[in-house]
């Protein structure tokens, strides 16, 4: 049994770092919110206002991020993006000195009540984590760092098969923003974790920003080892903080204190040394959160609010983040080199061109030219596909990037390893092993997409199909997309005004594309896989290898009865029918008879022909 992550809201969990922020009004007095997300390339601002008693996102603006030279001040980009909000809304939001204007009274036609922000500029938060056993404390440490919104540069463990001098060499090469050290259960062995500290200290990792400041080390291991660890780090330019053990016993994970300390250190050290962030922190009414941390928070809030299992994916130019909430478990992974521009070449290298071309229904594709095209996208990452052929190829690459990122996520999001399980003879075959994946495609209710290639696809059908092909949802799954990548803003808003965040999320953030119904199990192509009867759509038989799409507009709901063939499962067990309400959307209802796991035809020509039929069934591209 895993304890749910204890993640306290930032305002309740006041710390030294919080005092850098301007105090905001009480939640009840908040009617107008300005929120920004300072990304690596773009700063996105949104204006949220209470309209007729309901919070809505009313305007958005964006401007280039200004962390780099010649500006080297993040607030310039913030001011520019909020200026665009000003122009669009007609509401003055910027003071003459460039700061964010606050309202002086509830009737003031200018200003906002609070200003909040997230940030991933300058490469986001980069961490190194260490733990004694790779599959146990080191993995819990990695989960804590990822959940806090960090990119984990490397995980050092006593049993990671590297020799001590190789580990020291690796630590020397890295320039993390901070180090999270864990190891040992409380009351257990202290020697191994102290040994790890003794490897990190002589390696003297140097911080990425401002070589002059002390390297922050967070110790979240066996509490009995803390005095020894303190002794190791007392000299040599380290700033050690000790928090509760993130794995107090083998059966329990307690990531909250480590996560909170990571956020504090992020603000105190990393942000404080990034250009202009001292100013930005003073402007903001809540601690600045790392962008992925905020996205994870809002997805958890939604999943728990609706009592559903959800997966969110954000595919960017360099990385792909996958977030999942299954029951009490939240997991996030960052696939550092799976992205659509900076890392597109790596996607092709990892997936292989043959796997990418599986998703292309066109005939004439010259591999040499495609390879050069990929490299040209890598070196000129801001270009966009002009021709239909270029778009189709890019979406094929996206499917593989998403698929690989999802595989990595499933492998990481597991039950705690190392937990002893008691078994009876009866459940020997039924009980899952420790370390099995928490991600269960059949139990997934909602799949949310964000990131350029998914958000900016010319047709919603393309976005839906990329999700279905890469994630292979099973049973009944709602598909949605983040309209304008607003989830980071809402994640930080939820920490100060949860109702406002929830209302905007449901009304303005998510665009529902509809529902995918896919029987799990091996489908024999051309043979029936399920019978369906759907109100307003009709009834029929879905064949193996077949895809069907039915319009089911907007927020329409319909009753669907699906009777799978023997051996196929839509949620109630193999061969058992399911009747439930389904949600419509911009795409409608997708029936996927290709079986799960999805196995595509092995020859290029057969695969191309099959893909061509699915392109037509879903009307993916202009003919």
């Amino acid at each position, binding site marked *: 049994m895993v304890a749910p992550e204890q993640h306290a809201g930032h305002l309740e969990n006041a710390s030294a770092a919080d005092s850098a922020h301007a105090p905001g009004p009480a939640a009840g007095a908040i009617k107008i919110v300005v929120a920004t997300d300072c990304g690596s390339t773009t700063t996105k601002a949104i204006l949220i206002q209470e309209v007729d008693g309901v919070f809505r996102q009313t305007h958005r603006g964006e401007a280039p991020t200004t*962390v*780099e030279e010649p500006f080297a001040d993040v607030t310039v980009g913030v001011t520019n993006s909020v200026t665009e909000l000003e122009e669009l809304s007609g509401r003055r939001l910027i003071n003459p000195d460039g700061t964010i204007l606050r309202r002086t009274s509830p009737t003031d036609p200018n200003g906002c009540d609070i200003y909040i922000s997230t940030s991933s500029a300058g490469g986001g938060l980069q961490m190194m984590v260490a733990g004694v056993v790779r599959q146990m404390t080191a993995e819990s440490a990695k989960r804590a760092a990822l959940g806090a919104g960090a990119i984990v540069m490397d995980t050092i463990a006593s049993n990671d098969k590297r020799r001590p*001098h190789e580990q*020291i060499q690796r630590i020397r090469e890295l320039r993390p923003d901070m180090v999270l050290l864990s190891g040992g259960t409380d009351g257990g062995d202290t020697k191994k974790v*102290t040994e790890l500290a003794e490897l990190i200290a*002589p390696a003297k990792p140097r911080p990425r920003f401002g070589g002059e400041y002390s390297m922050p080390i967070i110790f979240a291991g066996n509490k009995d080892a803390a005095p020894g660890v303190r002794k190791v780090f007392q000299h040599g330019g380290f700033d050690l903080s000790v928090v509760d053990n993130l794995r107090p016993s083998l059966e329990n994970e307690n990531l909250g204190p480590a996560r909170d300390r990571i956020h504090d250190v992020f603000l105190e050290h990393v942000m404080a040394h990034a250009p202009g962030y001292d100013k930005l922190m003073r402007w903001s009414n809540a601690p600045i959160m790392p962008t992925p941390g905020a996205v994870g928070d809002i997805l958890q809030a939604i999943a728990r609010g609706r009592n559903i299992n959800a997966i969110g994916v954000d595919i960017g130019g360099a990385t792909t983040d996958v977030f999942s909430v299954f029951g009490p478990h939240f997991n996030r992974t960052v696939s550092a080199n799976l992205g659509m521009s900076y890392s597109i070449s790596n996607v092709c290298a990892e997936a292989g061109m043959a796997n990418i071309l599986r998703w292309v229904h066109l005939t004439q594709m010259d591999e040499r030219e495609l390879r050069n095209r990929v*490299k040209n996208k890598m070196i*000129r990452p801001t270009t*966009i596909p002009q021709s239909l052929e270029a778009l189709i190829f890019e979406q094929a690459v996206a499917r593989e990037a998403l698929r690989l990122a999802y595989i990595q996520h499933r492998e990481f999001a597991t039950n705690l390893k190392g937990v002893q399980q008691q078994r009876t003879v009866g459940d020997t075959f039924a009980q899952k092993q420790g370390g099995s994946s928490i991600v269960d495609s059949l139990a997934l209710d909602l799949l949310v997409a964000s990131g350029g290639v998914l958000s900016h696809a010319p047709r919603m059908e393309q976005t839906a199909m990329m999700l279905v092909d890469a994630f292979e949802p099973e049973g009944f799954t709602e598909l949605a997309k983040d309209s304008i990548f607003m989830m980071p803003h809402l994640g930080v808003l939820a920490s100060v005004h949860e109702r406002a965040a929830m209302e905007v999320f449901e009304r303005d953030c998510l665009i529902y594309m509809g529902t995918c119904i896919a029987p799990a199990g091996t489908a024999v192509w051309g043979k029936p896989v399920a019978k369906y009867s759907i109100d307003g759509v009709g009834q029929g038989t879905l064949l193996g290898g077949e895809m069907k799409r039915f319009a089911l507009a907007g927020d329409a709901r319909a009753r669907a009865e699906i009777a799978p063939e023997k051996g196929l499962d839509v949620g109630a067990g193999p061969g058992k029918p399911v009747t439930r309400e389904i949600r419509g959307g911009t795409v409608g209802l997708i029936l996927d008879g290709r079986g799960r796991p999805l196995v595509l035809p092995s020859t290029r020509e057969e695969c191309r022909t099959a893909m061509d039929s699915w392109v037509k069934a879903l009307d993916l591209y202009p003919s």
Partner: protein
Amino acid sequence: MAKAYTPGLKVAAHSTYRSRRLLPIKGEVLVRVGDLVNPSTPVARTYLEGEATPMKLANLLGAQPRELPSLMLKPVGSRVANGEPIARSKGIFGMMKTEVKSTAEGTIESISETTGMAIIRGEPIPVQVDGYVAGSVVEVIEGEGVVVEAQAAVVQGIFGVSGEASGPIKVVCAAPTEVCDTDHIDASCKGCVVVGGARMTAAAIKKAKAVGAAALVSGGLDDSDLRDFLGYDLGVAITGTEKTGLTVIVTEGFGDIAMADRTFHLLKGLEGRLASVNGATQIRAGVMRPEIVVPLDDAGVAAAKAAMAARLAASVAHEEGSLEIGVFVRIIRDPHFGVIGTVAALPEAPAVLGSGSKARVLDVKLSDGTIVTIPRANVELIEG
């Protein structure tokens, strides 16, 4: 209305070029403001801490960690040679003593009574920074390094591999459209920054390396040839640390693509001059492009300035980085990849592209008079 900027690659006949030559950690600066340096002049020096070698001595001695200090043959701070005994067990009744020899040369940095581990710190590793470019020192950053300034022609490439190199420029292709192949490379290329034309072939790269060329610069390169040269498929464009023995710089992109006319003729006009090149490329935060820097003498500066003035008079004046009608742009994505033209129109309203996406576009007039419509994201300015 916010202004749209479309940064491009620099191709300048004259520019005041500055290079920050910094140590990775604090050290000693070896030159003063006003000193003249050349690419190989040492300008700053420091020592990195030596490698740390951990030794689990208590384990090796079969002793408890707390006993370790009394078993050490040398105290913390002592120098030890590789193979020199550093700890000895008490043995049984003074017999059967176990001795442990150091596995590294250096100084005993620490001994842990908790874990029984000792750290041997190796000799400091000297690190030196050189001048990179022929010029003068204009600033000393105390303990960190210097800024070297040169009046120079500067060409930025789009992609490169391997780090800094220098040598005289040798142009081996007759035209920017000529593929750079083995026929163009011979023994006379040794030590030179070799300039080709269009795509460089895998065989040409191999031969350039074999004859000892300092660098090979050309318009294009095939992805598969890059993979052959590096020995692996490059996933992310962060380069500069490869130890290939030859710096390679591509000025336009991947595939069959001619070097821009202006770049080719500029480099052709600089033939024989000493160039400093760096293939380091980083596309993410803090964009870094490969470069070819050719310091100029007074006469060279005067000639370059005159040429630039003439070019400026013949073209449309524009704000640097700003997309305006009449300025030169390079199309950087298919279906017109690599083609150069001038901006003919900048329509305000977004247009629907062949892909079905809606985007802001511009019209580009090509050299044959044809006008093509291109997304604004798919062009870059040719700056100079």
